[in-house]
Structures are given as C-alpha cells and as structure tokens.
C-alpha cells in the first residue's frame, strides 16, 4: 500500500469514528444526558485506570481471532457466518476435555486448545463439505448451524455435563463444572480478566498475516478467491484449497471458544459467548480483510465492547448506545464518504 492510499484509508476510519460519536452525542443530547459524562466514561473505561486498558485487550483477544476466522474464509470467497456457532462448539469441547482429563500443566492447556480447535473444525466441516460436494451456499448452512450450535451445547450441558454445587445439587445457569487448574491460561493481575490467550491470539494472527501475505499458500488462496479460473489454469487445486481454508476458519473460531473457556470463563457458560462471532465479522470487514489491519480493528472494537460493560455500571445511559456507536461507525465506514469527497475534489481540480 503506498503512502497516499494509506492516508486515504486512515482518514476513512477517522471520519467514520467521528460520525459515529457525533450522531451518538445527538441522540444523548435529545434524551437529556450530558455528553461529557458519556465521553468521560468512554475514556475512563479505556485508559482511566492502569487496569482499564488490560480489559480492552481482554476483549480484543477473541475479536482478533474471530476476525481472522472470518477473514480466512473470505480469502477464498466463502462467507463464514458460522464463526459464532463454531466458537460455541469449541468452547464446549475445551471445557469438557479439560474437565474430564486430568493432565499435567502445559499438556492440559494444549489439549484443551486443540480440542477447541477440533470442535470448531468439526462444526465447519459439514458446511465446507456440502459447499464443495454440492455447491450448497455456505451462508445458509453456517447461519443455520449457529442456532443448532447454541441450542445443542445447552442441551448437552444440561443432559451430561451440568455443573454441581458444592453440596451436590444442580445450579440454575447452564454451565459445566470448572475446568482443571492445569488447563487454565494464566492471568496477569487479579484485577483484569486479561490472560495469556492474548499472546496466542496475536501470534496466530501474525503467523496468518505472514502466510497470507508472503507465502505460496497465501498466493493460492488469493488466486482461488479472486480469480478461480486463473487459479485452475495455474494448476492450483481450487476446490481443495477452498475446503481447507473453510476448515482452518472453523478451527480458528474453535480456538476463540477454547481461549474464552480456558482464559476467562473456566467453564462453558451458555449465553456468555453471544455475538462474539458476528463481531469478528465486523472486525474483519472494517480491517478491509487485511490481516495486519485486524489488530487495529480488533483493538477498536475491544474499546467499544469494554466500555459497553462499564457504561451501564456507572451511568444511567443504556449500554446499547455503544452498540449504536459501533453500528454508526460501520455504516459510515461502509458508505465511505472519504471516497466521495476525494472524487469531487479531484474532479474540481481537473476543471
């Protein structure tokens, strides 16, 4: 990317953020809430205390990986809307394996993570296979399997893995028993849920960025996604690469579930993973499907998600306002006013 196009994309983001906040302020104003308070909560929750930013990074972790999961499928032309469900399955797999198998420290951690990835992969497999074998539209299959994933995990937990209370009774929330301590990803401070999962997420994304950008595999995936006929002509096994990318996408989604289970929740908790996959899709779209851009994009959404939790705790403002801000941001980003401005400006200069 050259310098001027970088400036253009950066201004695209900045403008989108400004528009998002501006409209949110108008909404606040009309409801009689002080804007300053809203903005100060937004700032405090992000950088106000030494631990605030750690919480932002905590939310960035799953967003980064679910963004990556979406992006890898998108590279070959698949729209994996099933990241959500694949995360659920990954989380459950990880929670069950690490609870059932008592393993030594590092091994327990690894086995849990691999189980999660396997879960995500297994959930993506039928969609990938149907798309490859019969050309079934993956948007439909992945989206539908999300519902199945959410409900089947709850069902399985209720039937077989429901947590027991200390005195042996059952509890109300649909949740599994706590996982073995050996399988838990270490946290940095007791004041934040941020854990070693961040390093895994960053490392995986960095490796993926390198593979996609510099390696033959990345070239092949790009060719398959952007010019399938050219890919076939070049001797790239188009169908197989698409299939593989779909499964990798599912595995990375499963990894998100595993990291949530082993890093933050320490069990499978129904309802605690809502929208994580769909937010990943937004992260990837805002990053314009650029793996390096995922970092900035995930950080941004991390800030929003973190402040969403804080805002409802300390103010009377609805936490949904943060959803409104992020929705407005994405709208303004997708509409791309910068492009329009540049075009008019150029046209005027040429006259």
């Amino acid at each position, binding site marked *: 990317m050259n310098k001027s196009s970088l400036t253009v994309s950066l201004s695209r983001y900045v403008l989108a953020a400004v528009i998002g906040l501006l409209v949110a302020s108008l909404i606040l104003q009309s409801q009689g809430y002080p804007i300053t308070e809203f903005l100060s909560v937004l700032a405090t929750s992000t950088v106000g205390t030494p631990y605030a930013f750690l919480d932002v990074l905590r939310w960035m972790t799953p967003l980064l990986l679910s963004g990556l999961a979406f992006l890898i499928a998108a590279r070959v032309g698949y729209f994996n809307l099933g990241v959500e469900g694949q995360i659920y399955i990954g989380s459950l797999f990880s929670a069950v394996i690490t609870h059932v198998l008592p393993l030594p420290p590092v091994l327990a951690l690894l086995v849990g993570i691999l189980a999660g990835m396997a879960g995500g992969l297994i959930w993506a497999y039928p969609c990938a296979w149907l798309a490859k074998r019969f050309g079934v539209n993956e948007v439909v299959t992945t989206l539908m399997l999300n519902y199945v994933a959410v409900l089947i995990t709850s069902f399985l937990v209720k039937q077989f893995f429901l947590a027991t209370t200390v005195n042996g009774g059952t509890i109300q929330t649909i949740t599994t028993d706590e996982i073995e301590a050996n399988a838990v990803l270490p946290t940095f401070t007791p004041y934040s849920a941020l854990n070693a999962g961040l390093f895994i997420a960053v490392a995986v994304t960095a490796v993926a960025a390198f593979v996609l950008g*510099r390696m*033959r595999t990345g070239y092949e995936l790009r*060719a398959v996604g952007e*010019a399938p006929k*050219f890919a*076939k002509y*070049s001797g790239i*096994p188009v169908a*197989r690469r698409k299939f593989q990318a779909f499964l990798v996408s599912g595995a990375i989604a499963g990894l998100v579930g595993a990291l949530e289970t082993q890093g933050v929740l320490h069990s499978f908790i129904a309802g605690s993973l809502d929208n994580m996959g769909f937010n990943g899709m937004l992260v990837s779209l805002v990053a314009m499907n650029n793996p390096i851009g995922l970092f900035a994009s995930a950080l941004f959404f991390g800030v929003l998600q973190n402040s969403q939790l804080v805002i409802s705790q300390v103010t009377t403002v609805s936490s949904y306002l943060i959803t409104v801000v992020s929705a407005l941001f994405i709208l303004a980003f997708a509409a791309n006013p910068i492009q329009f401005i540049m075009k008019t400006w150029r046209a005027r200069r040429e006259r």
Partner: protein
Amino acid sequence: MSPIQSGEDYIVFSSISKSFGSNKALDDVSVIAPRGRVTAVVGENGAGKSTLMKVLAGVVEPDAGSVTIGGERKSFRTTREAALSGVGMVYQETALVPELSVWENIILGWEPVGAGATLSKHRARRDVIELSERYSLPVPVDALVRDLPVSVQQQVEILKVLHRQADIVILDEPTSVLTPQERVGLFDAMTNLQAEGKTILFISHKLDEVLNTAHHVTVMRKGRVVASQDNRDLDRRSLARMIVGRDVAPIERRAAPALGRVVLDVSSVALGALHEGPGIRGASLQVRQGEVVGLAGVSGSGQYELVQAIAGLETPDRGSVVFDGTREVRIDAKSNSAQSVSALRAAGIGHIPADRNLVGSLRGRPLWYSAVAGRLHEPEFCRRGIIRIKTARALASDIIAAGDVVASGPDAHPESLSGGNLQKFIAQRELMLKPVLLLAEEPTHGIDIGAAREVRQKLRQVAADGGAVLVASTDLDELLEMCDRIIVIFDGRVVLDKVRAACTEEMLGAAMTGLDEEQAA
C-alpha cells in the same frame, strides 16, 4: 431530417489532445468521418484509436480540441449524454451482467416502460428479438449471458447499442472475437446499419476487413494521425506500411526440421459441451516435435473443449491425452484435473488461454502475480513456501521487456494494460517457459499486425527450437501463414488433417462448415 447528406462530413474531430500523466495518448488529432459511411480507424496498440473513440463516446474528456457532429459542437461528459445524442460504443472487453439474460442485458438502462411504470417484459423481449433479426445478429434472447461464449456476448453488446437507437455506432475491434461466419454476419449488420443512414466508426487490426468494409480509412500512430484517406487508393501493403511505419515482412518459415518424436498423442477424446455446441465427440490427433499444428473450426465446434482437455483443465469423459514432455503425463477419465494441470506444467507444457482477463491473468493484483502463474513450485520463485517477490517482479519485468509490452512495470495491474498488451504479456510469459509443447488459443487476439507478426514468429521459433505448437484460432489467415499442418474440427470431430501445402482456404472453409461431409454423403 438532417441537412447533412450521406457522404458529407459529419463527425469532425479537430485538434484533439489528451494526455494520461506523461503519456500523450492523442496529440493534435483531427479526423473527419462522413455521414452514413463506414470509417475505419486503424493503428498499432496504444496508437490512440480507442482513446479517440472514447472522446466521442463521452468516456474521455479531451485536454484540448473539440468534436462537432453535424456542425454542432458536442462535449459529452458521460456515456449517457453521448447515448442520448445517438452515439453508442461497443467496447473490446464486454461489460455485461453475467447473471442476467440476454434480453435483460440489452434493455438494461433503457427499459421500455409499460402501464403504471412497470417494466413491460413481454414488449422488451419482443423488441430484442426483432432487433436481433433485423440486424442478423442471432442471439439466444433468454439465455444467461454467463453461459455464452465471448463471441455471442459481443453480439449482445452490439445489439445493446442498437437498442439505444444509436445514430453513430462505434465498434472497438468488433471482429477480434468473431469467427469468419460471425464476421460475415457482422458485416451484413454493418451494411444494414449503413443502409439506414447510420454512421459507423470502427477500430480494427485486420487489413482485409478494413479494406473490404470501410469507405474511409484513418491511420494513427503514436497518438497522431498519419493518414486519412479514401479506401479506393489503398491496398494491403500500403496500409500495413502506414500502420507500422515500415514494411511488414511475412514471417520467416525456415525449412522445417525433420519432425521429431510425438509429444502429444490425443486418442478418441470426448468431452461434453462446456458452452454451446456439441462438445468434442471422439477426436484423435498427434503433434510432433518441430511442427506447428493449427486447429481450425467455427467457434463452438468443439475445439474449445478439445483444448481444455489437452490442457488438463477438464477431465475428458472418454479417451486419453498423453503428453510426453520432460516426462510423460497421461490424462483420462480417471484423472484429477488440478493434478493434471500442475503435472503438465511441470512436464513442459505452455498454454496461452483464450480468455486473457479471467483465465490468463489475476486481475486487481500486480502483474508479477500473473507472471509466476503455475511456477511457484520452482525454487527460483518460492523457497520454503515463501514467495520470492524480488525474483517474481524481475520475471514480470523480463516478460514486459521481452514481449514488448507497454506497462508501467511489474506492479501495474493487468486491467491497466490495454487488451493487446495483456495478450502480449501472457503470450510472452508462456514463451519464457521454453515449452516442449505450447498450446495457443487465439494467440494474437486483439494485437496489432506488427506485434501479431512478432508473436507468430516466436511461436514458429518454438518449433524451430525443437518444441511443438498447437494453435487454435478462428483466424484462417493466421493458421495458413504460420502452420505446418492444419486440423479442422467440425461438429465435435476431426474432419480434416492435412499438411499446410495441401490446404487451400476454400477447402478449409468447406471443412469448417461441414460441406465436405455433405458432399461425401
């Protein structure tokens, strides 16, 4: 009615200049096109022909100069403005919506509106059918555009312009994708148009069709007009000299070396139709080292399917293809096509595909992406799975230099190259492989005569160097000029296989249209 009579000056370009960056595409160009006549604009790739036509069509705004039509000064800012004034342009690369049917594409943007502002489908469809009959451009009105071969897509483009009731029709190399038969159809259509008083401007590389159809010929070279005159005073040789700026010698045909071993053995290959037509139904042929073999046929006769099977892109239903290059590769019904392609490439097959945009290059990415097509298994371009961008870019630069391609460099995107230049790039890329067998589909499609001669000469050189070439082309003159042997496909079968010396144009034409078989029967 217009006061300007047929034959009088109608469209006047005066002193048009246009630069793209430092490149002067048009330099003080003045051209006059008479009303109701066919004016041909000829010249090499990048001579400025398309740019000049785009000025008229409202696509390009000139830096200086003006256009008048019938004495009225016009400056169109958009194609729609131009279309409303009766100027329509058919581009070299089609821009149709693949998911829509033919008639939908034709009316798109100019839909006839029925009662209550609804689209009157029935009327629209009927109009399109009428139009296609009137101008003898038979298109399947209900077929989806994506299912049609390029040649039919182009006819749809022409109909689209006609549907907009263009008074001035600009055709940018309309015949480059048409078969001889279709070309006749087009020329008939042009005659019809002209009979209705329409003015036609057409860009072409083909000397014969210019000489046969145009009343007035304008020759451009490097952004300037070098000649603008009546067709009467022209012949092939003088026209070719004006275009290139020097004499164009016929390609050199050195005494054929003794033919070597069989490198390609196709036996009874059958493959269902990929577009329209019969597909290929049991074709056998052999190609030996040291020969250039031509594959002739009316488009849709099955030669496309045959080439796809030979290239390993499609698995044949029956029969086998055995390629004996640096090692033997056998393709039959049990083969996996992705493996076949890479095995063939590794064994020394080169392939210039017919579709340079979707098959031959990776659009939207720097040229070096296209340059390394099928070569990433070579350690020179990819080591330990990591692409060596430096050598890949160097390869792209080499191809640009060796193929005489006009491109800003290895980072230019394929879509920024003119059609002819991209074709040269792809042809040169395959030539750089030093292939044992080079499959060439329409290798000079859209290239000007000077460059086409270069490409043909290079293809002959492949054979002279001990390789073999199989050329599929709808241009009979090209095949007669460069081949040692010509094979004609008709209705999915090989109907003629003769050495060049024993072939005449009439004989080939008869074989291509199945006249031979009828006579025999």
